[in-house]
């Protein structure tokens, strides 16, 4: 487990600036809130000199047993040597404000979260799937997705060519017996 050199208790700072419901545990440095409140938090983390969270090191998502989704952010301050983990509850619309306008590193990581979980990031400049093909119809890291052989060729990715190949093969097979006669 990493030790953080200058970890501070942000309770005072948060209660002063965040005018909405949140949970903060200084022991684990985890802040929990609703994703709708993220723009205010982003502005504070990037703008407040005492926080100066300049390094968004990780962004991912998880699904809870009851089917609720969370987006998880991990920040570090290179200037102050402190860290913060933020767990934001995703609304049913599956739409979360994007962090890209403050941290460029969010760009690819949000694309990954969209690709794997189907969480949309509003305000993202280029929200496309990053690992899988656009033709894929599922979000693999959702618990409802079972890792089993894929039936639809289009879901294998790369797809258009393979679908065309499969069609051509089927057409050829249909044609050949006729020629044989």
């Amino acid at each position, binding site marked *: 487990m990493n*030790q953080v*050199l200058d970890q501070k208790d942000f309770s005072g700072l948060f209660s002063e600036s965040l005018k909405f419901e949140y949970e903060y545990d200084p022991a684990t440095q985890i802040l929990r809130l609703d994703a709708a409140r993220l723009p205010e938090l982003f502005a504070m983390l990037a703008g407040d000199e005492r926080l100066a969270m300049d390094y968004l*090191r990780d962004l*991912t998502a998880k*699904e809870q047993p009851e089917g609720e989704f969370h987006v998880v952010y991990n920040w570090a301050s*290179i200037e102050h*040597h402190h860290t913060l983990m933020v767990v934001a509850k995703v609304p049913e619309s599956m739409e979360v404000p994007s962090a890209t306008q403050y*941290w460029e590193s969010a760009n690819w990581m949000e694309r990954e979260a969209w690709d794997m979980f189907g969480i949309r990031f509003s305000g993202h400049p280029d929200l496309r799937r990053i690992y899988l093909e656009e033709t894929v119809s599922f979000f693999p890291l959702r618990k409802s*997705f079972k890792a089993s052989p894929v039936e639809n060729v289009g879901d294998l*990715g790369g797809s258009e060519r393979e679908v065309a190949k499969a069609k051509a093969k089927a057409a050829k097979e249909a044609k050949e017996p006729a020629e044989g006669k």
Partner: protein
Amino acid sequence: MARRYTQPDVMARRSDDLETQELTLNVGPQHPSTHGVLRLVAVTDGEIIKSLEPHIGFLHRGMEKNSEGREYRQLIPLWDRNDYLASMHMDYMATSAVEALMDLEVPRRAEYIRVMMLELQRIASHLFWFASFALDSGAVTPLFYALKEREKIMDMFEMASGARLLYNYIRPGGVRADITPAFMEKLTAFLRDFPRYLDECEQLYTGNAIFINRARDVGVLTREAAINLGVSGPVLRGSGVAWDLRKDEPYSVYPEFKFDIPVGERGDVLDRYEVRFYEMRMATEIVRQAMEGMPEGEYVAKVAPSPKTKAGEVYVRQEAARGELGCYLVSDGGKKPWRFHVRPASYLNLGALDTLCRGYLFADLIIILGSIDIVLGDVDK
């Protein structure tokens, strides 16, 4: 100041009816210089790169989904295939995440062995980087020299773990097997010879005028952009940010070791090159200190064959060969992870490639890509 290429005057003087347009160039996915399976789509104006888009995912194996159905011990041999040039770091990543959610006293000897192996792995990985980077910049000879040295490290790893590439050596509680006197003998010989080898390499390549002309002031990344883009490791330090998790967010027994962190000045390809070379020297120092200060005792703590963790969530990170290797583990208190997310350093470093290449010549693309040292298996998970 950074040298950014601009359009030569001749373009302004040409006749008006000459039609010009931007050209989209495709590199890869099957290209020997892309270090795996990577497709780059560059929009060029003449020879200058206007924008560049990496397409990844050709090696996507669904490792995170795969991890959810496995017990903690099974995660280690699964993940050390992810970054196959730095398997020890991958082993340690999975191990440290599991250990963070267990009440476990890891023996000091085990921690020392781990540090020793992690640093040897850093040297091996950087040597392979040197080989392929030299190849990217047009020199073939360094490949043979670097792989010869890397072979020695792989032999040592084979003595310790039984495997040459994918070790499955570091595990919850300690390491798989104790190191032997024969290993120590081999390590002593390696530590004696290696600094001399590095000097040789520097003579051969670092001072080479052709190389310096190609690498200096190319692929410049400013300090602010580097932090904002989330790059890490030698790329971040090459841009002048003194940020090394071994010092700045220490883990294992690293606070007991003395070493320096190299930092670049210009943030160009040459700086990243020099940072990695200095890191190899420092890693040799750390291995030497670990060898000299190796405590006696157990090399592994008693851990159940299929251990359970506490319920909770944790983000652990370490300074791997390519940068910050993070792991976010969510456990529901069972034997298998509920969510296992890995933040590979190569992924975000590759994300910065667009910024790095804009305004430089297309011919510089491969040397810039070589200088950020990616492993596509690591990027694609």
